[in-house]
Protein backbone atom coordinates (compact mmCIF):
# COMPACT_ATOMS: atom_id res chain seq x y z
CA UNK A 1 0.00 0.00 0.00
CA UNK A 2 1.30 3.43 -0.94
CA UNK A 3 1.81 5.67 2.06
CA UNK A 4 2.58 8.68 -0.09
CA UNK A 5 1.43 8.95 -3.69
CA UNK A 6 2.01 11.83 -6.06
CA UNK A 7 0.14 11.80 -9.36
CA UNK A 8 1.29 14.15 -12.14
CA UNK A 9 2.10 16.91 -9.70
CA UNK A 10 3.33 20.22 -11.13
CA UNK A 11 4.33 23.42 -9.41
CA UNK A 12 5.32 26.77 -10.85
CA UNK A 13 6.59 29.72 -8.82
CA UNK A 14 5.81 33.29 -9.68
CA UNK A 15 8.85 35.31 -8.58
CA UNK A 16 7.09 38.65 -9.01
CA UNK A 17 6.01 41.26 -11.50
CA UNK A 18 7.81 41.26 -14.87
CA UNK A 19 9.75 38.12 -13.97
CA UNK A 20 9.52 34.82 -15.74
CA UNK A 21 7.69 32.02 -13.94
CA UNK A 22 9.87 29.25 -12.64
CA UNK A 23 8.85 25.65 -13.16
CA UNK A 24 9.87 23.86 -9.97
CA UNK A 25 8.19 20.48 -10.41
CA UNK A 26 6.75 19.02 -13.59
CA UNK A 27 4.35 16.08 -13.89
CA UNK A 28 5.90 14.27 -10.95
CA UNK A 29 4.45 10.85 -10.17
CA UNK A 30 5.83 8.56 -7.52
CA UNK A 31 4.74 6.27 -4.74
CA UNK A 32 6.39 5.46 -1.46
CA UNK A 33 5.25 2.24 0.18
CA UNK A 34 5.08 1.29 3.86
CA UNK A 35 8.46 0.61 5.44
CA UNK A 36 10.35 1.81 2.40
CA UNK A 37 13.31 4.17 2.40
CA UNK A 38 12.93 6.39 -0.63
CA UNK A 39 15.73 8.77 -1.54
CA UNK A 40 15.33 11.73 -3.83
CA UNK A 41 18.50 13.03 -5.41
CA UNK A 42 19.14 15.74 -7.95
CA UNK A 43 21.22 18.83 -8.57
CA UNK A 44 20.39 22.12 -6.81
CA UNK A 45 17.11 23.55 -8.08
CA UNK A 46 15.89 20.13 -9.25
CA UNK A 47 12.64 20.47 -7.27
CA UNK A 48 13.39 18.17 -4.34
CA UNK A 49 12.60 20.67 -1.58
CA UNK A 50 9.51 21.87 -3.47
CA UNK A 51 8.31 18.27 -3.57
CA UNK A 52 8.78 17.94 0.18
CA UNK A 53 6.99 21.25 0.82
CA UNK A 54 4.05 20.07 -1.27
CA UNK A 55 3.98 16.84 0.74
CA UNK A 56 3.83 18.87 3.93
CA UNK A 57 1.11 21.16 2.58
CA UNK A 58 3.33 24.24 2.89
CA UNK A 59 2.80 24.93 -0.80
CA UNK A 60 0.03 23.71 -3.07
CA UNK A 61 0.54 21.99 -6.43
CA UNK A 62 -0.80 23.78 -9.51
CA UNK A 63 -2.04 20.47 -10.87
CA UNK A 64 -1.99 16.80 -10.00
CA UNK A 65 -2.86 15.13 -6.74
CA UNK A 66 -1.04 14.12 -3.58
CA UNK A 67 -2.49 11.45 -1.34
CA UNK A 68 -1.37 10.22 2.05
CA UNK A 69 -2.69 6.75 2.94
CA UNK A 70 -5.10 7.04 -0.01
CA UNK A 71 -6.66 10.23 1.35
CA UNK A 72 -6.20 13.69 -0.14
CA UNK A 73 -3.55 15.64 1.73
CA UNK A 74 -6.05 18.19 3.12
CA UNK A 75 -8.07 15.46 4.88
CA UNK A 76 -5.21 13.19 5.85
CA UNK A 77 -4.09 14.78 9.13
CA UNK A 78 -0.59 14.12 7.84
CA UNK A 79 1.15 16.25 10.50
CA UNK A 80 0.36 13.85 13.33
CA UNK A 81 1.93 10.97 11.42
CA UNK A 82 5.04 12.57 10.01
CA UNK A 83 8.28 13.90 11.34
CA UNK A 84 10.02 16.53 9.25
CA UNK A 85 13.55 17.84 9.29
CA UNK A 86 14.21 20.76 6.94
CA UNK A 87 17.57 21.54 5.40
CA UNK A 88 19.38 23.94 7.79
CA UNK A 89 16.69 24.04 10.47
CA UNK A 90 16.33 27.50 12.01
CA UNK A 91 15.23 26.95 15.56
CA UNK A 92 14.31 29.44 18.26
CA UNK A 93 17.52 31.14 19.45
CA UNK A 94 16.55 31.76 23.05
CA UNK A 95 14.94 28.41 23.83
CA UNK A 96 16.80 25.42 25.19
CA UNK A 97 16.58 22.02 23.53
CA UNK A 98 14.51 20.77 26.45
CA UNK A 99 11.97 23.59 25.96
CA UNK A 100 11.88 23.01 22.22
CA UNK A 101 11.11 19.33 22.76
CA UNK A 102 8.48 20.19 25.38
CA UNK A 103 6.80 22.35 22.73
CA UNK A 104 7.09 19.57 20.15
CA UNK A 105 5.47 17.16 22.63
CA UNK A 106 2.60 19.50 23.52
CA UNK A 107 1.98 20.33 19.86
CA UNK A 108 1.87 16.62 19.04
CA UNK A 109 -0.51 15.85 21.90
CA UNK A 110 1.98 13.89 24.06
CA UNK A 111 1.85 13.94 27.85
CA UNK A 112 4.77 15.56 29.72
CA UNK A 113 5.87 12.09 30.88
CA UNK A 114 5.92 10.74 27.31
CA UNK A 115 7.72 13.87 26.11
CA UNK A 116 10.39 13.60 28.75
CA UNK A 117 11.05 9.86 28.28
CA UNK A 118 11.02 9.97 24.48
CA UNK A 119 13.03 13.23 24.44
CA UNK A 120 15.60 11.75 26.82
CA UNK A 121 15.94 8.67 24.62
CA UNK A 122 16.46 10.72 21.45
CA UNK A 123 18.91 13.13 23.10
CA UNK A 124 20.87 10.17 24.38
CA UNK A 125 21.01 8.57 20.92
CA UNK A 126 22.18 11.81 19.32
CA UNK A 127 24.56 12.75 22.13
CA UNK A 128 22.60 15.90 23.02
CA UNK A 129 21.83 15.18 26.68
CA UNK A 130 24.60 17.37 28.04
CA UNK A 131 23.54 20.41 26.03
CA UNK A 132 19.80 20.11 26.64
CA UNK A 133 19.71 23.17 28.92
CA UNK A 134 21.81 25.40 26.67
CA UNK A 135 20.15 28.07 24.48
CA UNK A 136 19.90 26.92 20.88
CA UNK A 137 21.72 30.04 19.66
CA UNK A 138 24.93 28.63 21.17
CA UNK A 139 24.67 25.40 19.15
CA UNK A 140 26.95 24.62 16.20
CA UNK A 141 25.41 23.82 12.81
CA UNK A 142 25.73 20.09 13.41
CA UNK A 143 24.15 20.37 16.86
CA UNK A 144 21.23 22.33 15.41
CA UNK A 145 20.76 19.62 12.82
CA UNK A 146 20.67 16.98 15.54
CA UNK A 147 18.32 19.14 17.64
CA UNK A 148 16.07 19.37 14.57
CA UNK A 149 16.09 15.59 14.28
CA UNK A 150 15.06 15.24 17.96
CA UNK A 151 12.24 17.76 17.31
CA UNK A 152 11.07 15.83 14.23
CA UNK A 153 11.13 12.36 15.80
CA UNK A 154 9.79 13.16 19.26
CA UNK A 155 6.23 11.95 18.61
CA UNK A 156 7.45 8.68 17.06
CA UNK A 157 6.06 9.37 13.58
CA UNK A 158 5.39 6.52 11.17
CA UNK A 159 6.66 8.55 8.22
CA UNK A 160 9.87 10.54 8.39
CA UNK A 161 10.72 13.22 5.85
CA UNK A 162 14.33 14.34 5.96
CA UNK A 163 15.70 17.13 3.79
CA UNK A 164 19.50 16.89 3.74
CA UNK A 165 19.76 15.25 7.17
CA UNK A 166 23.57 14.90 6.97
CA UNK A 167 24.15 18.51 5.94
CA UNK A 168 26.65 20.28 8.20
CA UNK A 169 27.46 17.21 10.26
CA UNK A 170 30.96 16.05 11.09
CA UNK A 171 31.82 12.36 10.47
CA UNK A 172 30.72 11.40 14.01
CA UNK A 173 27.43 13.25 13.62
CA UNK A 174 26.91 11.64 10.22
CA UNK A 175 27.46 8.22 11.70
CA UNK A 176 24.93 8.98 14.47
CA UNK A 177 22.29 10.10 11.98
CA UNK A 178 23.11 7.18 9.71
CA UNK A 179 22.62 4.74 12.59
CA UNK A 180 19.40 6.49 13.58
CA UNK A 181 17.98 6.22 10.06
CA UNK A 182 19.02 2.54 9.94
CA UNK A 183 17.29 2.08 13.29
CA UNK A 184 14.12 3.77 11.99
CA UNK A 185 14.26 1.55 8.93
CA UNK A 186 14.50 -1.56 11.10
CA UNK A 187 11.45 -0.33 13.05
CA UNK A 188 9.52 -0.35 9.78
CA UNK A 189 9.18 3.44 9.44
CA UNK A 190 8.63 4.89 6.02
CA UNK A 191 11.44 7.29 5.20
CA UNK A 192 11.53 9.87 2.43
CA UNK A 193 14.71 11.77 2.15
CA UNK A 194 16.76 14.11 0.02
CA UNK A 195 20.51 14.26 0.19
CA UNK A 196 23.51 15.32 -1.80
CA UNK A 197 25.69 12.76 -0.05
CA UNK A 198 25.16 9.97 -2.55
CA UNK A 199 27.07 7.28 -0.66
CA UNK A 200 24.60 7.65 2.23
CA UNK A 201 21.64 7.54 -0.14
CA UNK A 202 23.05 4.43 -1.78
CA UNK A 203 23.59 2.67 1.53
CA UNK A 204 20.26 3.59 3.09
CA UNK A 205 17.65 3.66 0.35
CA UNK A 206 15.53 0.89 -1.07
CA UNK A 207 14.67 3.05 -4.05
CA UNK A 208 16.19 6.23 -5.37
CA UNK A 209 14.48 8.82 -7.54
CA UNK A 210 16.63 11.08 -9.68
CA UNK A 211 15.16 14.55 -10.33
CA UNK A 212 16.50 17.00 -12.88
CA UNK A 213 14.84 20.28 -13.86
CA UNK A 214 11.68 19.47 -11.90
CA UNK A 215 11.18 16.11 -13.61
CA UNK A 216 11.67 12.66 -12.15
CA UNK A 217 13.88 11.10 -14.79
CA UNK A 218 14.74 7.80 -13.20
CA UNK A 219 13.83 5.54 -10.31
CA UNK A 220 16.47 3.05 -9.28
CA UNK A 221 15.74 0.12 -7.02
CA UNK A 222 18.05 -2.54 -5.55
CA UNK A 223 17.66 -4.72 -8.70
CA UNK A 224 18.56 -1.80 -10.95
CA UNK A 225 21.69 -1.35 -8.86
CA UNK A 226 22.62 -5.00 -9.34
CA UNK A 227 22.10 -4.63 -13.08
CA UNK A 228 24.34 -1.63 -13.07
CA UNK A 229 27.18 -3.90 -12.00
CA UNK A 230 29.53 -4.83 -14.78
CA UNK A 231 30.20 -8.50 -15.69
CA UNK A 232 33.83 -8.47 -14.60
CA UNK A 233 35.54 -8.78 -11.26
CA UNK A 234 39.10 -7.64 -10.62
CA UNK A 235 41.34 -9.43 -8.12
CA UNK A 236 44.40 -7.65 -6.85
CA UNK A 237 47.05 -10.32 -6.33
CA UNK A 238 50.74 -10.43 -5.37
CA UNK A 239 53.14 -10.18 -8.33
CA UNK A 240 52.84 -13.32 -10.49
CA UNK A 241 55.77 -15.33 -11.79
CA UNK A 242 55.76 -16.33 -15.48
CA UNK A 243 54.71 -19.90 -14.56
CA UNK A 244 51.87 -18.76 -12.34
CA UNK A 245 50.74 -16.36 -15.03
CA UNK A 246 50.72 -19.09 -17.73
CA UNK A 247 48.67 -21.40 -15.44
CA UNK A 248 45.84 -19.02 -14.70
CA UNK A 249 45.76 -17.12 -18.01
CA UNK A 250 43.32 -19.58 -19.68
CA UNK A 251 40.85 -19.17 -16.78
CA UNK A 252 40.67 -15.34 -16.78
CA UNK A 253 39.91 -12.61 -19.27
CA UNK A 254 42.90 -10.37 -18.57
CA UNK A 255 45.98 -9.98 -16.39
CA UNK A 256 47.42 -6.49 -16.00
CA UNK A 257 50.40 -5.27 -14.05
CA UNK A 258 50.03 -2.37 -11.67
CA UNK A 259 52.72 -0.87 -9.42
CA UNK A 260 53.38 -3.64 -6.90
CA UNK A 261 50.69 -6.13 -7.82
CA UNK A 262 48.85 -7.77 -10.68
CA UNK A 263 45.19 -7.22 -11.48
CA UNK A 264 43.42 -10.36 -12.62
CA UNK A 265 40.16 -9.67 -14.42
CA UNK A 266 37.67 -12.50 -14.62
CA UNK A 267 33.95 -13.15 -15.19
CA UNK A 268 32.09 -13.16 -11.87
CA UNK A 269 31.06 -16.81 -12.50
CA UNK A 270 34.72 -17.92 -12.66
CA UNK A 271 35.55 -16.57 -9.20
CA UNK A 272 35.41 -19.90 -7.32
CA UNK A 273 37.56 -21.71 -9.85
CA UNK A 274 40.17 -18.94 -10.14
CA UNK A 275 40.50 -18.36 -6.40
CA UNK A 276 40.99 -22.12 -5.91
CA UNK A 277 43.74 -22.12 -8.55
CA UNK A 278 45.43 -19.07 -6.98
CA UNK A 279 45.34 -20.78 -3.60
CA UNK A 280 46.96 -23.92 -5.09
CA UNK A 281 49.68 -21.77 -6.68
CA UNK A 282 50.24 -19.98 -3.36
CA UNK A 283 49.35 -16.54 -4.75
CA UNK A 284 48.20 -14.04 -2.16
CA UNK A 285 44.92 -12.23 -2.96
CA UNK A 286 45.28 -8.67 -1.68
CA UNK A 287 41.91 -7.29 -2.62
CA UNK A 288 39.18 -7.02 -5.21
CA UNK A 289 37.09 -4.46 -7.04
CA UNK A 290 34.08 -4.78 -9.29
CA UNK A 291 32.91 -3.00 -12.42
CA UNK A 292 29.82 -1.84 -10.53
CA UNK A 293 28.79 1.69 -11.39
CA UNK A 294 28.57 3.91 -8.35
CA UNK A 295 25.40 5.93 -7.70
CA UNK A 296 27.44 9.02 -8.45
CA UNK A 297 28.27 7.69 -11.92
CA UNK A 298 24.65 6.68 -12.56
CA UNK A 299 23.50 10.08 -11.29
CA UNK A 300 25.99 11.99 -13.45
CA UNK A 301 24.99 9.92 -16.50
CA UNK A 302 21.30 10.64 -15.87
CA UNK A 303 21.92 14.36 -15.40
CA UNK A 304 24.05 14.57 -18.55
CA UNK A 305 21.41 12.71 -20.61
CA UNK A 306 18.72 15.12 -19.46
CA UNK A 307 20.49 18.44 -19.73
Amino acid at each position, binding site marked *: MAIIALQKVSKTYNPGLFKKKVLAVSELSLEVTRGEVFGLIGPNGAGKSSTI*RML*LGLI*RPDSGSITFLDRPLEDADIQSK*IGYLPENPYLYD*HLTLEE*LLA*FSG*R*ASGLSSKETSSRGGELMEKLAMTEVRKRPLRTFSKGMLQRAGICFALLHDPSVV*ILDEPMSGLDPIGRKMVFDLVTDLKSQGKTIFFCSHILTDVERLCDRIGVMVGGRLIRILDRDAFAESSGPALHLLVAPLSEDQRRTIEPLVSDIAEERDHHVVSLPTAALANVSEQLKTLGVEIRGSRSDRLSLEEIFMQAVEENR
Partner: protein
Amino acid sequence: MKKVLALALITYREGIRNRSVFGIVLFSLFIFGLNIAVAGFFMRDVGKVTVDMNLSALSVAGLLLVFFVGVNLMAKDIDRKTIHLVLSKPISRVEYIWGKYFGILFFILASMAVLFVLSCFTVLLLKGMYADYFGQFSWLVFSLAAFFVFVKVAVLAGIVVFFSSITSNSFITLVFSICAFIVGVSIEEVVFYLRSAFAAQEAAISGSLRSFIEAISYFVPNLAAFDFKTEAAHGLPLAWDRLGLSLGYAAAYVVVLLLLASFIFRRREFN
Protein backbone atom coordinates in the same frame (compact mmCIF):
# COMPACT_ATOMS: atom_id res chain seq x y z
CA MET B 1 -6.33 25.47 22.92
CA LYS B 2 -3.43 23.40 24.33
CA LYS B 3 -1.50 23.90 21.10
CA VAL B 4 -2.23 27.65 21.06
CA LEU B 5 -0.89 27.90 24.61
CA ALA B 6 2.16 25.77 23.77
CA LEU B 7 3.00 28.12 20.92
CA ALA B 8 2.22 31.18 23.07
CA LEU B 9 4.59 29.89 25.75
CA ILE B 10 7.58 29.48 23.43
CA THR B 11 6.83 32.86 21.82
CA TYR B 12 6.71 34.47 25.26
CA ARG B 13 10.02 32.84 26.28
CA GLU B 14 11.66 33.79 23.00
CA GLY B 15 10.55 37.39 23.53
CA ILE B 16 11.32 37.82 27.20
CA ARG B 17 14.87 36.44 26.80
CA ASN B 18 15.68 38.81 23.95
CA ARG B 19 18.50 41.12 24.99
CA SER B 20 16.71 44.15 23.50
CA VAL B 21 14.20 43.87 26.36
CA PHE B 22 16.95 44.75 28.85
CA GLY B 23 17.83 47.80 26.74
CA ILE B 24 14.20 48.91 26.70
CA VAL B 25 13.87 48.43 30.48
CA LEU B 26 17.10 50.41 31.00
CA PHE B 27 15.74 53.18 28.79
CA SER B 28 12.57 53.34 30.90
CA LEU B 29 14.64 53.37 34.08
CA PHE B 30 16.58 56.30 32.66
CA ILE B 31 13.34 58.21 32.01
CA PHE B 32 12.07 57.41 35.52
CA GLY B 33 15.41 58.56 36.96
CA LEU B 34 15.31 61.70 34.85
CA ASN B 35 11.80 62.33 36.15
CA ILE B 36 13.07 62.17 39.74
CA ALA B 37 16.03 64.43 38.90
CA VAL B 38 14.08 67.17 37.12
CA ALA B 39 10.76 67.00 39.00
CA GLY B 40 11.78 69.89 41.30
CA PHE B 41 12.00 72.28 38.34
CA PHE B 42 8.27 72.11 37.68
CA MET B 43 7.04 73.51 41.01
CA ARG B 44 3.26 73.29 41.18
CA ASP B 45 3.02 71.03 38.12
CA VAL B 46 5.31 68.36 39.50
CA GLY B 47 2.41 65.90 39.98
CA LYS B 48 1.14 66.35 36.42
CA VAL B 49 4.63 66.17 34.93
CA THR B 50 5.41 63.01 36.91
CA VAL B 51 2.27 61.23 35.74
CA ASP B 52 2.78 62.43 32.17
CA MET B 53 6.43 61.36 32.04
CA ASN B 54 5.74 57.97 33.58
CA LEU B 55 2.87 57.16 31.25
CA SER B 56 4.88 58.42 28.27
CA ALA B 57 7.84 56.23 29.28
CA LEU B 58 5.50 53.24 29.54
CA SER B 59 4.03 54.06 26.15
CA VAL B 60 7.41 54.45 24.40
CA ALA B 61 8.70 51.25 26.05
CA GLY B 62 5.56 49.42 24.90
CA LEU B 63 6.04 50.67 21.34
CA LEU B 64 9.69 49.63 21.33
CA LEU B 65 8.75 46.21 22.70
CA VAL B 66 6.10 45.57 20.07
CA PHE B 67 8.00 47.02 17.11
CA PHE B 68 11.49 45.78 17.79
CA VAL B 69 10.90 42.52 19.63
CA GLY B 70 7.28 41.63 18.82
CA VAL B 71 7.79 41.98 15.05
CA ASN B 72 10.65 39.48 15.16
CA LEU B 73 8.64 36.97 17.13
CA MET B 74 6.39 36.24 14.17
CA ALA B 75 7.90 37.79 11.04
CA LYS B 76 11.31 36.20 11.67
CA ASP B 77 9.60 32.79 11.85
CA ILE B 78 8.50 33.30 8.27
CA ASP B 79 11.73 35.05 7.22
CA ARG B 80 13.96 32.28 8.55
CA LYS B 81 11.55 29.46 7.64
CA THR B 82 11.20 28.30 11.24
CA ILE B 83 7.51 28.17 10.39
CA HIS B 84 8.17 25.09 8.21
CA LEU B 85 9.18 23.19 11.33
CA VAL B 86 6.29 24.51 13.40
CA LEU B 87 3.66 23.77 10.76
CA SER B 88 5.05 20.27 10.25
CA LYS B 89 3.57 19.58 13.70
CA PRO B 90 -0.19 19.11 14.10
CA ILE B 91 -0.76 22.85 14.53
CA SER B 92 -3.22 24.52 12.19
CA ARG B 93 -2.38 27.86 10.65
CA VAL B 94 -5.22 29.49 12.57
CA GLU B 95 -3.80 28.11 15.83
CA TYR B 96 -0.42 29.46 14.79
CA ILE B 97 -1.80 33.01 14.37
CA TRP B 98 -3.58 32.99 17.73
CA GLY B 99 -0.68 31.29 19.49
CA LYS B 100 1.76 33.88 18.21
CA TYR B 101 -0.56 36.75 19.17
CA PHE B 102 -1.07 35.46 22.71
CA GLY B 103 2.68 34.84 23.03
CA ILE B 104 3.46 38.43 22.03
CA LEU B 105 0.67 39.65 24.33
CA PHE B 106 2.02 37.70 27.36
CA PHE B 107 5.51 38.97 26.66
CA ILE B 108 4.35 42.60 26.47
CA LEU B 109 2.14 42.16 29.54
CA ALA B 110 5.03 40.74 31.61
CA SER B 111 7.49 43.41 30.48
CA MET B 112 5.04 46.27 30.98
CA ALA B 113 3.95 44.93 34.38
CA VAL B 114 7.58 45.16 35.55
CA LEU B 115 7.87 48.67 34.11
CA PHE B 116 4.56 49.68 35.74
CA VAL B 117 5.82 48.53 39.16
CA LEU B 118 9.03 50.55 38.66
CA SER B 119 6.93 53.51 37.54
CA CYS B 120 4.78 53.23 40.69
CA PHE B 121 7.95 53.40 42.82
CA THR B 122 8.95 56.60 40.99
CA VAL B 123 5.52 58.15 41.56
CA LEU B 124 5.52 57.00 45.20
CA LEU B 125 8.94 58.55 45.77
CA LEU B 126 8.02 61.87 44.16
CA LYS B 127 4.65 61.88 45.91
CA GLY B 128 6.53 61.57 49.22
CA MET B 129 8.95 64.32 48.25
CA TYR B 130 6.36 66.77 46.90
CA ALA B 131 3.16 65.65 48.66
CA ASP B 132 1.54 69.10 48.34
CA TYR B 133 1.55 68.99 44.57
CA PHE B 134 -0.08 65.56 44.26
CA GLY B 135 -3.43 66.65 45.64
CA GLN B 136 -5.45 65.60 42.61
CA PHE B 137 -3.47 62.43 41.97
CA SER B 138 -5.45 59.20 41.91
CA TRP B 139 -3.77 55.77 41.91
CA LEU B 140 -6.86 54.29 40.27
CA VAL B 141 -6.87 56.70 37.34
CA PHE B 142 -3.08 56.39 36.97
CA SER B 143 -3.32 52.58 36.93
CA LEU B 144 -6.21 52.64 34.46
CA ALA B 145 -4.29 55.01 32.17
CA ALA B 146 -1.27 52.66 32.36
CA PHE B 147 -3.54 49.68 31.62
CA PHE B 148 -4.83 51.46 28.51
CA VAL B 149 -1.25 52.04 27.38
CA PHE B 150 -0.98 48.23 27.45
CA VAL B 151 -4.31 47.96 25.55
CA LYS B 152 -2.92 50.28 22.86
CA VAL B 153 0.20 48.13 22.55
CA ALA B 154 -1.99 44.99 22.43
CA VAL B 155 -3.85 46.48 19.44
CA LEU B 156 -0.50 47.24 17.79
CA ALA B 157 0.56 43.63 18.42
CA GLY B 158 -2.56 42.57 16.49
CA ILE B 159 -1.47 44.86 13.65
CA VAL B 160 2.02 43.33 13.70
CA VAL B 161 0.55 39.82 13.48
CA PHE B 162 -1.77 40.91 10.66
CA PHE B 163 1.05 42.41 8.58
CA SER B 164 3.31 39.42 9.32
CA SER B 165 0.62 37.19 7.87
CA ILE B 166 0.65 39.01 4.53
CA THR B 167 4.36 39.79 4.08
CA SER B 168 7.37 37.50 4.19
CA ASN B 169 9.86 40.12 5.33
CA SER B 170 10.19 41.38 8.90
CA PHE B 171 11.35 44.83 7.77
CA ILE B 172 8.23 45.37 5.64
CA THR B 173 6.10 44.26 8.58
CA LEU B 174 7.89 46.82 10.77
CA VAL B 175 7.41 49.65 8.26
CA PHE B 176 3.69 48.88 7.73
CA SER B 177 3.11 48.58 11.48
CA ILE B 178 4.82 51.89 12.25
CA CYS B 179 2.77 53.58 9.49
CA ALA B 180 -0.43 52.14 10.97
CA PHE B 181 0.63 53.47 14.38
CA ILE B 182 1.34 56.97 13.08
CA VAL B 183 -1.99 57.12 11.24
CA GLY B 184 -3.73 55.55 14.25
CA VAL B 185 -2.61 58.16 16.77
CA SER B 186 -3.48 61.11 14.54
CA ILE B 187 -6.61 59.97 12.69
CA GLU B 188 -9.03 61.10 15.41
CA GLU B 189 -7.76 64.69 15.34
CA VAL B 190 -7.78 64.76 11.54
CA VAL B 191 -11.38 63.56 11.42
CA PHE B 192 -12.46 66.08 14.11
CA TYR B 193 -10.81 68.84 12.14
CA LEU B 194 -12.48 67.80 8.88
CA ARG B 195 -15.85 67.82 10.61
CA SER B 196 -15.22 71.25 12.15
CA ALA B 197 -16.31 74.62 10.83
CA PHE B 198 -12.67 75.60 10.17
CA ALA B 199 -12.23 72.81 7.65
CA ALA B 200 -15.40 73.83 5.82
CA GLN B 201 -13.72 77.15 4.99
CA GLU B 202 -10.61 75.43 3.55
CA ALA B 203 -10.82 75.35 -0.22
CA ALA B 204 -7.84 73.00 -0.43
CA ILE B 205 -9.81 70.16 1.18
CA SER B 206 -11.82 68.59 -1.60
CA GLY B 207 -14.92 66.51 -1.06
CA SER B 208 -13.20 63.39 -2.31
CA LEU B 209 -10.28 63.86 0.13
CA ARG B 210 -12.77 64.30 2.94
CA SER B 211 -14.59 61.09 1.95
CA PHE B 212 -11.28 59.23 1.59
CA ILE B 213 -10.13 60.20 5.09
CA GLU B 214 -13.57 59.36 6.50
CA ALA B 215 -13.35 55.92 4.89
CA ILE B 216 -9.78 55.37 6.10
CA SER B 217 -10.79 56.26 9.65
CA TYR B 218 -12.98 53.16 9.79
CA PHE B 219 -10.05 50.84 8.93
CA VAL B 220 -7.12 52.21 10.89
CA PRO B 221 -7.18 51.83 14.66
CA ASN B 222 -8.11 54.95 16.57
CA LEU B 223 -5.29 54.76 19.08
CA ALA B 224 -6.30 58.09 20.66
CA ALA B 225 -9.22 56.17 22.19
CA PHE B 226 -6.74 54.53 24.59
CA ASP B 227 -5.01 57.73 25.68
CA PHE B 228 -5.99 58.74 29.23
CA LYS B 229 -2.83 60.68 30.05
CA THR B 230 -4.60 64.01 30.46
CA GLU B 231 -7.18 62.56 32.85
CA ALA B 232 -4.47 60.82 34.86
CA ALA B 233 -2.26 63.92 35.02
CA HIS B 234 -5.13 66.10 36.26
CA GLY B 235 -6.74 63.39 38.38
CA LEU B 236 -10.01 63.68 36.45
CA PRO B 237 -12.58 60.95 36.99
CA LEU B 238 -12.97 58.40 34.20
CA ALA B 239 -16.40 57.31 33.05
CA TRP B 240 -16.72 53.52 33.20
CA ASP B 241 -18.81 53.43 30.02
CA ARG B 242 -16.01 55.22 28.15
CA LEU B 243 -13.47 52.75 29.49
CA GLY B 244 -15.72 49.83 28.58
CA LEU B 245 -16.25 51.24 25.10
CA SER B 246 -12.49 51.66 24.54
CA LEU B 247 -11.78 48.17 25.81
CA GLY B 248 -14.56 46.68 23.68
CA TYR B 249 -13.29 48.59 20.65
CA ALA B 250 -9.74 47.24 21.21
CA ALA B 251 -10.98 43.65 21.66
CA ALA B 252 -13.22 43.83 18.59
CA TYR B 253 -10.46 45.40 16.49
CA VAL B 254 -7.94 42.74 17.48
CA VAL B 255 -10.39 39.87 16.92
CA VAL B 256 -11.26 41.17 13.43
CA LEU B 257 -7.55 41.62 12.62
CA LEU B 258 -6.70 38.10 13.76
CA LEU B 259 -9.64 36.60 11.88
CA LEU B 260 -8.45 38.37 8.74
CA ALA B 261 -4.87 37.26 9.38
CA SER B 262 -6.05 33.67 9.87
CA PHE B 263 -8.06 33.82 6.65
CA ILE B 264 -5.05 35.09 4.67
CA PHE B 265 -2.61 32.74 6.41
CA ARG B 266 -4.65 29.65 5.55
CA ARG B 267 -4.30 30.46 1.87
CA ARG B 268 -0.68 31.42 2.01
CA GLU B 269 2.20 29.38 0.59
CA PHE B 270 5.53 29.04 2.35
CA ASN B 271 8.40 28.60 -0.08
